[in-house]
Structure formats: structure tokens, C-alpha cells
């Protein structure tokens, strides 16, 4: 079964058209980078797949279910760009609250594991509003991965993280064997986390294929230049 389907999706905000017939599919276990210039429609695509926005037309599905359905929500993990957990709750309260909403078994053990792995233990009683931006990002990652989702949507997941934590998060994500769609501007992040690439511009797919295929387009130039040329040509 295909884990993610985006088929001929249109979405506009008033007069601004964000997506114009966007289509791509991911099989179970695929790890795909979603690349595109600013305003290409990457965040809108993720919001539609997370069930926070409804497309004006077209189909979006997660494991065969509508993104807003209970079935899709229970297997989906979503991390938006610049995420903000509940500010008035502590780190542990945030994790336990979301675990309870998601009916996660062994909450205490899982929360403890996450706190230790992401080195948040010393901040477990701290209010989120008092955390540094890097620790907020760590907590946000923990919140989106706590229920071990089968499909993960990540918008710039390594933002604000120090290098050792970036390595830890990359290791954790790779170990999870989940289907992953990662929106990012940083090619090195895409190369470390994913094997496939969908490049979008002006709300439509302009290129898709494997990461090796992308590198193979021109062996004389870095992959960043190849992607930049694609985006420039599309605009």
C-alpha cells in the first residue's frame, strides 16, 4: 500500500494559489525530501497531509485514509517549522499530555526514554516558555515521535539543534523505519535523512526521483547548484 498519496491537489489562500495540481506518491518506508524555493507550497503540502488544511480539490491520503481521519492521525507524526509546544506546561507535562491524547501505552517509560535520549531530563519540570530555542526544538521532535508514527512529516527538523543533537536525531529517525517526508532548504539535511527527492515550485512538482539520480544529473557541480538551477528555471 502507498503510504502517502497527493493527487492533483489544488489549494489557494484567497487570490494566492499555493498548490496547482500537485501530485506525488510515497511507498511505505520511503524517505523523501520535499525541496522548493520560498513560497513553493511545501508547508501547505505538509499541513494538508497533517489534516490541518483541506485541499480545494484533489486527493490527499495517509495509508489509504483521509488525513483528518482518526486512522490517519493515529499513525501520523507531524513537526511544523518553528514549532511551539504548550507554553504554560512543563516539558514532561507536554509529553504526558500528548501521550494521553494519543493513548500511548507505557507513557512514563517512553517519556523517560525520550527525555534521556534528547538530553532534556534536567529541564523536565521547566516551563516551555523558559526553554532555549534548541531545547524547544528537541521537545517538539519528541512530541512528534513519541507515539512511534508510521508516517512522519517534518518541516526543517534540525533547525536550532547543535551538531551532536543533529546526529542523534538523524540516528533516531533512520532507526524508526517509518515513511518520512522532510521539507527542508538545506541539501545536507536532505542527503543525510532521505533517499528520494520531490522538487516543487509554484505549487507543482518540477522534478522527482532518487537522491543518486539527482546527484547524477551533473557530476561536475554540487547538488545544491543542480537544485538551484531547477528552481530558477521553473520560476
Amino acid at each position, binding site marked *: 500500500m502507498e503510504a502517502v498519496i497527493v493527487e492533483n491537489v489544488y489549494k489557494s*489562500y484567497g487570490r494566492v494559489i499555493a498548490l496547482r495540481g500537485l501530485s506525488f506518491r510515497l511507498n511505505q518506508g520511503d524517505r523523501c525530501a520535499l525541496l522548493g524555493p520560498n513560497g513553493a507550497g511545501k508547508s501547505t503540502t505538509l*499541513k494538508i497531509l*497533517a*489534516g*490541518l*488544511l483541506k485541499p480545494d480539490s484533489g486527493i490527499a491520503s495517509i495509508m489509504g485514509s483521509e488525513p*483528518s481521519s*482518526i486512522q490517519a*492521525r493515529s499513525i*501520523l507524526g*507531524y*513537526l*511544523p517549522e*518553528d*514549532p*511551539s*509546544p*504548550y*507554553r*504554560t*506546561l*512543563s516539558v*514532561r*507535562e*507536554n509529553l*504526558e*499530555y*500528548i*501521550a*494521553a*491524547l*494519543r*493513548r500511548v501505552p507505557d*507513557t*512514563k517509560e517512553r*517519556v523517560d526514554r525520550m527525555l534521556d535520549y534528547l538530553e532534556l531530563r534536567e529541564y523536565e*519540570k*521547566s*516551563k516551555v*516558555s*523558559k526553554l532555549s530555542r534548541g531545547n524547544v526544538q528537541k521537545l517538539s521532535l519528541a*512530541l*512528534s515521535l513519541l507515539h512511534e508514527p508510521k508516517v512522519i512529516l517534518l518541516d526543517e527538523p534540525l533547525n536550532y539543534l547543535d551538531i551532536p543533537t543533529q546526529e542523534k536525531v538523524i540516528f533516531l529517525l533512520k532507526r524508526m523505519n517509518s515513511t518520512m517526508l522532510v521539507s527542508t532548504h538545506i541539501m545536507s539535511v536532505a542527503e543525510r535523512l532521505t533517499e528520494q527527492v520531490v522538487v516543487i515550485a509554484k505549487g507543482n512538482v518540477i522534478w522527482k526521483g532518487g537522491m543518486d539520480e539527482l546527484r547524477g544529473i551533473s557530476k561536475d557541480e554540487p547538488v545544491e547548484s543542480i537544485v538551484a538551477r531547477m528552481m530558477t528555471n521553473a520560476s
Partner: protein
Amino acid sequence: MLRSLLKFVLLTRFSKALLAFIAFIFVYYVLAFSEFSAHNFYSARYLVVLFMIFLFVLSTLGGGIAILKSDRDFLFILPIPRRDLAVALYTAQLISMGLAVFFLLGYFYPFFPAAIRTSLLPLDIVAFSISITSLSIISFSLQFYRRLLLASFLSVWTASAMLGLRLSPAGIITGGEYLGSLSLVALAVTTTPLALKQLSSVELEFMRSLIRASSSDVKKQTDFAGLSPLRAIFSLNFFTVEFSGRMNTAGFGGGGYRSVRVRLVLLLPIMSLLAALYLLLMLKIGTFADVSFITAIASIYMIVFTLFMSLGVLGNERLWLGFTSVNPFAYLRYVVAARALSVASMFSPFAAADIVLSLLGVRGAINAALLVAVVLPCNFILVVLWSGYVSPVQIKEEGSMPSQFNLKQTLNVLPALVSIALASIVTVSLIFAVIISLVMLLSAFVTLTNKRVAEIIIRKMVDNGFV
């Protein structure tokens, strides 16, 4: 430099439509003042004192400088004269706080005798506007207990006019208008230099307020482990009460949001104590006076309290967490219902006091019980859903303004004004009280359970940049 800075500061904090609206109201009041004839001064004097206390309390407890996050990142580091910056920020603050005096107290202008209206009253209004503006700035970086002390002192000083003390900010109602004006002018003259001094080092004050705002740890952790989704939602939203600041009536309100979480079990004894005092007061005066005035005062305070409890319900929500973990419509419904039940529980000692008064034969007490137990919680639901429908604003950071003040946001306060109107109607007759209670109950239920309403609110939250 000052002119362009002033223009920049005002246009980044207020939408042009809102500034035009404020200017229109201002001109209307000034012109209308000269046309009104005097009404019954005696009936208005209590309300004048009440509103003055309300504004003092709001500016000291709920105050904050109208600054944006981008000010901290860009404006404050520019090489501009600090004096110009202080004047520009003070002007913005005057518009967001001080002009409230015109909107709230301007109503009572025609109640004053003609001789006062044309002589000392305009001076009082200006001095009072400047005072609450300056107090809102001074209290910005004060610790909570100091703000509480300041608010209590100003409340008692203002209320002392009711006992005939002439040297009081509300001295004008005692007939001792000169001493009243002197009090207000003295307050303005004392507080304004302090406020301007604070604004000239606004970047330091801003950081100090963030550090002092609250402790970094949650002292009593809520244990959600093993709870069902519904119980977790109620555990968070029913058993803890959250107060968030900013009101925006025609631009009026503190600049930044502050959110405070208090456990319901800690709040209930305090509310019970206040309800007991209310009961004693009513028993004392209920035998020889019309108690509807006291009921109205208590109701207005409860409505304002309810408004502060409603402001953070959606503002502190996180779409990517709560709304993606369970069915979003059910989540919204349960969160709002849990908060409304929390409001009802918090005010239940007052409802109980009113029932006791009613059993003791105090006229109008049962109406007040219906108001507290039914109308207020239902109104809370409508205020929250209405604010989500009109213009939801997410609170992403403490201290700074979450968004520009705009005309649309002023509509948020409409249900609160409706409930103040309802509170006065409910006290008139029992039949009205019953009918209004039933209508409010039905309206709240229908709105809360309507999937279309929930859909629109969630869509607007996404559109308004909620994460």
C-alpha cells in the same frame, strides 16, 4: 526623527482602520460632551468610582508596554535618540491604554453638573488618562505582588471617595472637585517621569520583565500518564484555571499577553472566602437597601474575570499537537466545555451565596444565582468561539504584542458587552432571568456542537498563522 519614529511606532502597533475609528470616537465624544445636559449625578457616582477602580486595576495588573518582537530584534538596537523612542512608545501606550478613559468614563460625562463639566472634569480626564498610561508602563517590570500592592492601594484610595474623602482620584464625586483634581494631577506628575525614564531604557526593562515574569519551573506537575484523552483534556482544562491578558476594546489593552496557571483547588477557597464576604455584605445592606447595585458590581467583575479566562483558550492552543492527536472538532469542543465548567465551578460559591440570600428572602438574589451559574459559563463559551470566529491570535511569546491591534479584534469584546447588558437585564425580573438563562444555554450548546462552526474556527486559526 521624532515625527517619522512616531509614525512608524503607531502604524506598526495599530491598523489604520483602528486608528481612524479611535479618532472618530474621540472627536465624537469631545463634540458630544458640550451638547449633553446634566442627568441624575447621584445615580452615576457609584459607577464612576467602579470604572475608575477597574481601570486602575487593569493598568497595574494587566499592563504592559505595547512592544513587538521585531522592536526587540531591530528597533531597539538602532542608533536613535532614546528620548524620541520613549515619547513615541508613550504615545502608542496612551492610545492603547489611556483612551479607554474616554470610552468608559466619557459615558458618564453628561451626568456631572454643568459647572464641573466645563472646568475641572476635562482636567481630571486628561490626568487620569496619563496616570493609567504611566502606571501600565511602570508596572510592566514589577513583580506580581508589587503590582497587586499598587492596585490595592489605588483601589482603596479611589473607593475612599465613597466615604467622603475628598483627597482621592474620585474626589470629584464628593463635591470636593479641587482636591480630587489635585490627587489625579499629583498621580500623573509622579508617575509620568518614571514611565518615560523606564521607556528610555525599554530594552533593559523588557528583558527584566521576561526574567521576572514567572519562575522557570512548574512547581506542581500535573500527571497525565495513563489518562484517557477525555480525562487528560479535563485534567488540563478543568482543574487548572488560566488567565491571559489583553483586552482590546477600540485599541484598549495591555501590550503583551501574560498567562498565569492556577489550580482550581487553590482558587476555590479564595473564591469561597470572597463569596462569604459578599454574603455578609448583602445581608448587612439587603435589609435596608436595594441590593441590585451590589449584584451588578459583582457581576461586572465576574464578567471581566471571565473575559480574562477566555482570552488564552485558543491563543495558547497548539494546532500541531492537540488538534492532530485526536479528532479536532471533538478536541475543540471538549477544551471549551472543560474551561466553561471550570468557570462555573470557580464562581459556584457566589451562586451558592445567592441561593442562600434568596432563601433568606433577599429580592433579586435568585436572579443573580442564575446569572452566575448559567449565563456566565454560557457566555464564556460564546466569547471563546466568537473570538475564534472573528480573529484568533496565537500567543507565541510572553511580554510582546502577539499581533497588531486591529479593528476586527475590537469585535472580540462584543459578547462581553452583551453579557454586561444581560447582567443588568437579569437583575430586573425573574422571568427575564429564566428566559435569558435558557436562551444562553441553548445558544452555547448549539454553537459548541455545530461542526461547521468548529470547521470555520480551525480554518481561521490555520489562516491566522497558528502553529
